[in-house]
C-alpha cells in the first residue's frame, strides 16, 4: 500500500487541510514559515499510524482530530483480504485500486480506524437503508403500542362498567334482591322492573362481549406484547446509557479544556486513579451503547416479524438468518481495522536517535538489549552490512578480520556515494567497525567480544561522538534510512522534520540524494526552510504550508499544492525563490551539445517541455539566464570557454533589447556570428505563447476563463507565478500526464516551428 493523499482535521493549528495529494514519486516536501503548521502535519500523520494523542493536539474549540489517508493498492489486494459479502460489494471491492482509511478520536482520546471512500459510502448506504427499514418497523411497533394502550385502557373501563352493572343486576328488585314490602306487585310495576333488568343484562352482555374481544386481542398478541416489552426495556437502557455518556463526555471535555488552556497534570483536581476510573466508565459506556444499539435493532426486527404475522419460531429463525447475513457484512470500523494492518508504517525520523556508539557489546546486540546506548544505531549498522550475529562466530580471527575489513571498505564506499563532503581539500570520511575482546582488566567482561565504531578521515581516527554535529546527524540519518529500506516488510512513510539543519548547503543536497535512493521502498515527507532541499525541477513535490491569514499566527493552517503555489505568501515560498534566483547554479554547460541560452527559468521549463512533447532529439542543451540583462555575460563566458552556443529570444521588449545588445556588444567579431541570435516571430511574445490559448488554459492554468489576450500578457497582467506554472507543466509532461496528442493543431504547429528554428544548431 502506498500513501497517495491525506487529510487532517482538528489537529493543533490545522482545522481542515482538505484532501492533499502527495508527490507520486514518493518524495514530498513541505515548505512554509515557522509556526505555519508543517510539524503538526508530520505529527498528525504519525498519530494516524499510532493512534496515540494527548490533549495538547486539541484545538481550542475541542473538536476531536481526524486523519484520513488514501492509499494505492495493487490489483486484487482487496479480493485477497476480504471475505465474500455479496455480489455488489465484492464487485465494488474488486474494482478499487485505492482505499481510504480514517482515524478519528473520541472524547477519551482513544481512536478508531474506519474505512472511508467508496467502501464507506457503500456500507453507509446499506446502513441508511437498514435504519430506514428499522425506522418504519419502529413506527409500526409504536402504532401497535398506541393500540395496545387503547385496548388496555378500554379493558379497564369495561371492567369497571361490568362491575357496576353486575352490582346493579344483583341488587335489582326484579331479582328479589331488595326488601319486598308488598307481597304482591302490581303487574305494571313488575313488567317495568323486568324490562329494566333485561336492559341491564343486555348492556352487561354487550360489555362482556367487548371485554372478551379485548382479552382475545391481548391473548392472541401475547408473544408480540412480550417482545415489545423487552424492546421497550432495551430502549430505556439505551437512553440511560446515552445520558450517562453525555455526562462523562462533558466531564472529559472540561478536563481537555483545562489541560489545553493551562497544561500540566498538576492542576488536575482529580487524582490519576479517579481519572482512570472516568476514562474506564466512558469506555464501558461507549461499548454498552453499541451493544444496546445492536440489541435494540435485533429486537425491533423481531417485533417487526411478529407484527407481520410470522410465528415465534419462524421469527427467531428469520432473525438468526438476518443476523448471519449481517455478520457477513463489514462495518466501517471492522473494515478499517482489517485493512489498516496492511497500511504503511508512519515513522518520524528523530535526530540523533540512532547515533553510533563508540563501543557496544556483541552480547547486548545478540540479546536484543534495546536499553543499551547506541543499540539502535549498531543494529542499523549491522542491517546495512547485512550481518547477523552468526557472522561473528567465525572461528578464524584472521578470516573474520579480513571480512570486516572488506565490509568496512564497502560500507564506506556506499556511504560516500551520499556524503560527498570533503574534510579539508581531499579527504573523505570513512566509517569503520572493528571486533575486539575485553582485556582481563575488565573484570566480568574479560574475554567477551565487543564492536567498536570509528569515523575516520586520513588525518584522524575519531569515535562517532567526537565528530561534528553535521557528520553525526548525517550518519544517524543514513543508518536509519538505509536500515529501514532494507528492514521494513511493510511499506514505510518516513516523516522528517527539517532534515540537515546543521549541514552545509552541499551536504543538504546529499540528504536529497539519500531520499532519491530510498524512494522506491520508503515514501518520504519532509519539512524544510532550505532551498538546497528542494529540487527545482520537481516542484510537483512541494506543498506550501501557511496560515489562512498570514498576518495572524492563531489562524488555521492551509496547504497549497504545486498548482496553487502562486497563492502562497512570499515568505512561504522563500526557499523556492532562492533557487529561482540562481537557476544556473544547478545547470551545467554542455561541451558536446549546442548550448541554447534562454531568458529565464520559466522559458527554460517551457523549452524542455516543448522538446519532450515534440520528441526532438537534436543535440541542444538549454541554459536559463537569470534575466535578459545577464545574457551578454553568459555569452561572453561561453565564448571564452570555446563552447558552442546560441541565444533564443522571444518577441518582448526586454528580449528584443537583449538581442540588440548582443549584436552591438557580443557578436561583433566574426560576420555570421549573429546568426546565433534567434528571435522568435512577433506572435510569440514569450515561451508560453507557443501553446494555443486553449491548451494554455486547459494544460497549464487548468481554468476555463475566456482569455482575450496572449498567454504571456495574461500571465503578466494577472501576476501569475510563471515559473511555478511552467515547472508544473514540464513535470506533467515528464510524467506523461500531458502528451503530444493532448495538444491542439495550433500548439503542435507552433512547436514544430520552434523545432525547425532549432534544427540549424544540429
Amino acid at each position, binding site marked *: 500500500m502506498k500513501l497517495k493523499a491525506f487529510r487532517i482535521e482538528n489537529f493543533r493549528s490545522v482545522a481542515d487541510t482538505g484532501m492533499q495529494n502527495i508527490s507520486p514519486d514518493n518524495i514530498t516536501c513541505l515548505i512554509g514559515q515557522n509556526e505555519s503548521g508543517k510539524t503538526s502535519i508530520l505529527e498528525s500523520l504519525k498519530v494516524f499510524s499510532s493512534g496515540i494523542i494527548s490533549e495538547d493536539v486539541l484545538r481550542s474549540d475541542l473538536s476531536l482530530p481526524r486523519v484520513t489517508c488514501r492509499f494505492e493498492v495493487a490489483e486484487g489486494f482487496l479480493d485477497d483480504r476480504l471475505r465474500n459479502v455479496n455480489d455488489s460489494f465484492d464487485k465494488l471491492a474488486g474494482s478499487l485500486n485505492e482505499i481510504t482509511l480514517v482515524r478519528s478520536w473520541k472524547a477519551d482520546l482513544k481512536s478508531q480506524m474506519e474505512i472511508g471512500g467508496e467502501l464507506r459510502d457503500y456500507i453507509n448506504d446499506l446502513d441508511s437503508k437498514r435504519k430506514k427499514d428499522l425506522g418504519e418497523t419502529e413506527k409500526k411497533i409504536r402504532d401497535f403500542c398506541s393500540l395496545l394502550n387503547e385496548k388496555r385502557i378500554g379493558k379497564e373501563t369495561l371492567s369497571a362498567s361490568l362491575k357496576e352493572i353486575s352490582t346493579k343486576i344483583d341488587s335489582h328488585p326484579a331479582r328479589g334482591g331488595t326488601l319486598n314490602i308488598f307481597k304482591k306487585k302490581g303487574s305494571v310495576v313488575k313488567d317495568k322492573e323486568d324490562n329494566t333488568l333485561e336492559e341491564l343484562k343486555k348492556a352487561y352482555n354487550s360489555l362482556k362481549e367487548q371485554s372478551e374481544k379485548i382479552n382475545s386481542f391481548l391473548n392472541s398478541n401475547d408473544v408480540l406484547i412480550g417482545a415489545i416489552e423487552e424492546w421497550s426495556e432495551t430502549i430505556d437502557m439505551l437512553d440511560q446509557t446515552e445520558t450517562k455518556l453525555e455526562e462523562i463526555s462533558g466531564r472529559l471535555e472540561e478536563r481537555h479544556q483545562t489541560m489545553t488552556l493551562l497544561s500540566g497534570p498538576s492542576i488536575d483536581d482529580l487524582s490519576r486513579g479517579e481519572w482512570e476510573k472516568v476514562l474506564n466508565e466512558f469506555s464501558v459506556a461507549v461499548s454498552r451503547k453499541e451493544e444496546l444499539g445492536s440489541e435494540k435493532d435485533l429486537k425491533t426486527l423481531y417485533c417487526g416479524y411478529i407484527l407481520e404475522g410470522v410465528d415465534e419460531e419462524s421469527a427467531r429463525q428469520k432473525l438468526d438468518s438476518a443476523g448471519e447475513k449481517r455478520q457477513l457484512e463489514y462495518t466501517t470500523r471492522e473494515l478499517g481495522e482489517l485493512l489498516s494492518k496492511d497500511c504503511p508504517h508512519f515513522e518520524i525520523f528523530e535526530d540523533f536517535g540512532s547515533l553510533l556508539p563508540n563501543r557496544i557489546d556483541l552480547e547486548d546486540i545478540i540479546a536484543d538489549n534495546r536499553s543499551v546506548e547506541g543499540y539502535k544505531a549498531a543494529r542499523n549498522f549491522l542491517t546495512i552490512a547485512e550481518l547477523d550475529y552468526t557472522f561473528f562466530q567465525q572461528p578464524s580471527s584472521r578470516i573474520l578480520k579480513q571480512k570486516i575489513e572488506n565490509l568496512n571498505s564497502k560500507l564506506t564506499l556506499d556511504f560516500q556515494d551520499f556524503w560527498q563532503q570533503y574534510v579539508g581539500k581531499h579527504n573523505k570520511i570513512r566509517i569503520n567497525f572493528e571486533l575486539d575482546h575485553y582485556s582481563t582488566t575488565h573484570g566480568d567482561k574479560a574475554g567477551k567480544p565487543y564492536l567498536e565504531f570509528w569515523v575516520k578521515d586520513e588525518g584522524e581516527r575519531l569515535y562517532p561522538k567526537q565528530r561534528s554535529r553535521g557528520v553525526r546527524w548525517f550518519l544517524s540519518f543514513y543508518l536509519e534510512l538505509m536500515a529501514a529500506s532494507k528492514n521494513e516488510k511493510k511499506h514505510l512513510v518516513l516523516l522528517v522534520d527539517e532534515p540537515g539543519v546543521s549541514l552545509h548547503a552541499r551536504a543538504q543536497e546529499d540528504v536529497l540524494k539519500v531520499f532519491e535512493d530510498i524512494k522506491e521502498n520508503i515514501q518520504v515527507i519532509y519539512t524544510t526552510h532550505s532551498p538546497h532541499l528542494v529540487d527545482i525541477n520537481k516542484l510537483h513535490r512541494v506543498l506550501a504550508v501557511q496560515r489562512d491569514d498570514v498576518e495572524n499566527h492563531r489562524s488555521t493552517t492551509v496547504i497549497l499544492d504545486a498548482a496553487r503555489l502562486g497563492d502562497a505568501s512570499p515568505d512561504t515560498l522563500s526557499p523556492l525563490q532562492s533557487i529561482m534566483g540562481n537557476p544556473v547554479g544547478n545547470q551545467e554547460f554542455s561541451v558536446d551539445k549546442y548550448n541554447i541560452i534562454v531568458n529565464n527559468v520559466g522559458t527554460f521549463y517551457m523549452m524542455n517541455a516543448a522538446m519532450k512533447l515534440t520528441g526532438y532529439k537534436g543535440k541542444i542543451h538549454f541554459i536559463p539566464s537569470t534575466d535578459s540583462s545577464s545574457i551578454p555575460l553568459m555569452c561572453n563566458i561561453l565564448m571564452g570557454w570555446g563552447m558552442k552556443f546560441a541565444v533564443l529570444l522571444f518577441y518582448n521588449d526586454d528580449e528584443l533589447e537583449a538581442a540588440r545588445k548582443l549584436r552591438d556588444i557580443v557578436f561583433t567579431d566574426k560576420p555570421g556570428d549573429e546568426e546565433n541570435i534567434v528571435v522568435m516571430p512577433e506572435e510569440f511574445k514569450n515561451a508560453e505563447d507557443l501553446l*494555443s*490559448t*486553449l491548451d494554455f488554459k486547459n494544460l497549464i492554468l487548468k481554468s*476555463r*476563463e*475566456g482569455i*482575450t489576450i496572449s498567454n504571456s500578457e495574461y500571465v503578466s497582467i494577472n501576476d501569475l507565478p510563471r515559473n511555478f506554472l511552467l515547472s508544473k507543466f514540464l513535470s506533467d509532461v515528464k510524467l506523461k500526464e500531458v502528451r503530444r496528442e493532448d495538444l491542439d493543431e*495550433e500548439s503542435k504547429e507552433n512547436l514544430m516551428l520552434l523545432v525547425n528554428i532549432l534544427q540549424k544548431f544540429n
Partner: protein
Amino acid sequence: MNKDRGDFESVLFTQAMDEHLSSLRYASMIQRALMPDTSFLSGILKDHFIFYSPKDYVSGDFYYAYQNAGYTIIAAGDCTGHGVPGALLSILGISFLNEILQVRVVPRANRILNRMREKVMGALDQRGQEYEQKDSIDIALCVYEPFRSVIQYAGANRPLVMVSDGALKEIKPDKMPIGVAPLEEVSFTNHRIDVKEGDRFYMFSDGFPDQFGEETNKKFKIKNFRKLISYVSGWSMDKQKAHFENTFIEWKGSSSQVDDVLVMGFEI
C-alpha cells in the same frame, strides 16, 4: 375624472410605445449597418444572396464578411435568444470577428472560432460554473483561399452546405457553441475543402428549419431545408433568394415567426 385619468395614461402608454418602437427601428438600422452591404459582398464574392428576416426589429442572427491578404472570410451566426438580447450578442460577435481578423493572425477557420470563443467567454465572464449565464453564438465560418482553391470551414453548431456539380454535401459542425461548453472547451475542427469555380455554399441559422407551418403545425425541418437548397441551387442567386423568401412566407402562413431567420448563399 377617472375616465380622464384613464385616457391620460393611455396616451402616455402609447407615447412610450412609440418611443420604444422608434428606438428599436433605429437600433435595427445600426445593426444592419454593422453587417456587410450588398455592394461589398458583390465585390468579394462571385455571386451571393442573403435572406435575412428578423423576428423582431432587431435580430440575433447576423452575417459577416471580411477580406484581407487574399483571404475572404464569410460567416453566418445565430445568437441565443432573439430581439434585443440576441442583437446585443450579435453585435459583440461582429466586433470580436473584426478584432480577431484585424490583427495579424494565421487565417484558419477553427482558430478564428477558438479566439472568438475566448472573447465571448471573457466578455460574459463564463468560467464553466453552474450558476453563470450560458449565452452563446452558433456560427458557420468559411475562409476562402482563392489562390489555393480551398475553402476552410469551421462550425459551432451550424453546418455548411455545399453544392458542386449538382451534388449536395453537408459538412457537419462541431457540436459546441461559441461560448462556454457543457463540459470543457476543445479546439474547433478545421475542414479544408477543395473547391472549383461555380461551387455554391449555403450557411443558415436554425430559424427557417425550425419554423412551424400554419397548416401542419410542424417544423419545416432540416431535411426539407436541404431538399429546398438542392432544388434551387442551380438557379440564379436572386431567384434563389426569392424562392427561399416565398417558401418561408407560404410555409409560415398566418402563424407567428418563431425565431430570426438567416439564409446566406454564395458562389465562388
